[in-house]
């Protein structure tokens, strides 16, 4: 095993825990994007560029967009209810 693999594995493990422990969803979305970046690194050192590319598109593109849109709606609604 090469050191880079070990480093990326530690990163993924730590970031995964951080995602779960981030209880505020907005913060969690950000941490989740970082987690996916770590996964991308891991996929690259596991010699899986195809998977890495799709992880970039999904983890750092589609997921944040979808979740942030959902959160925006929730916040807008809560603001509307308070008024």
């Amino acid at each position, binding site marked *: *095993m090469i050191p880079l693999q070990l480093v990326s594995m530690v990163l993924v493990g730590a970031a995964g825990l951080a995602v779960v422990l981030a209880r505020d969803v907005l913060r969690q979305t950000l941490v989740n994007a970082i987690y996916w970046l770590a996964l991308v690194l891991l996929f690259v050192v596991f010699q899986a*560029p*195809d998977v*890495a*590319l*799709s992880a970039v*598109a*999904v983890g750092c*593109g*589609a997921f944040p*967009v*979808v979740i942030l*849109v*959902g959160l*925006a*709606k929730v916040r*807008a*609604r809560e603001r*509307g209810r308070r008024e």
Partner: protein
Amino acid sequence: MTQRARLAVFGVGALGLALVLAWGIAGLPDFGHYPGPYGMLLNRVAVPERHASNVVAAVVFDYRGFDTLGEELILFAAVLGVALLLRSGKEAHEEPRPMASEAVRAVTARLVPVAFLFGLYTIAFGPVTPGGGFQGGVLVALSLVLVYLGVDLAAFRKLTPTPVVDLLEGGAAAAFVGMGLGSLVAGMAFLQNFLPLDKIGTLSSPGSINLLNWAAGIEVASAFVLLFVELLNYLEAPE
């Protein structure tokens, strides 16, 4: 259950599950010593037989192309499901957004085509280099969402008229199935290659892999666009 009871049940379960999994993992070969034979055989035969230098693409679109068909159907069902859930009957009417500054618009206008083309490029060269229908399709859809971020929903929707995207999505998935049935009717196996193979490493080399790759790319891109449109419509809809 109280939070404590739930954690207790889960804690015992997680500990047990960890032990069980550890016992299973102990039977695996050491990391880095994948014993084959499936992948090794494909690495040997895929390039000469399928003329696709990206063996992963050959697996996704030919050897295990049927999985990909199932995957396209999953995506299709999910988009239908989201449309079903978020339909509200109310038309989105956007709060007038402060007009995006000239600078933002200019950046958007330059960025969108570049990202869009990069997505298409990723699809096109999938059978040769890393990438392919799925990755490129998501990138294409994301490039179009930039229009929403940079300008507004109306522009995004104008760029992606729902009937057209619907048709593209349905058409691409139907084309995938149709190619399978076509080869069946022609007396071959479902999804069997029916095109001549070309020199390895060129765009036209791997025969029907290209067609399926593009069908998947269009399907994925339009499915994601529909997903984003549904979500954004829901976001902008009045309560």
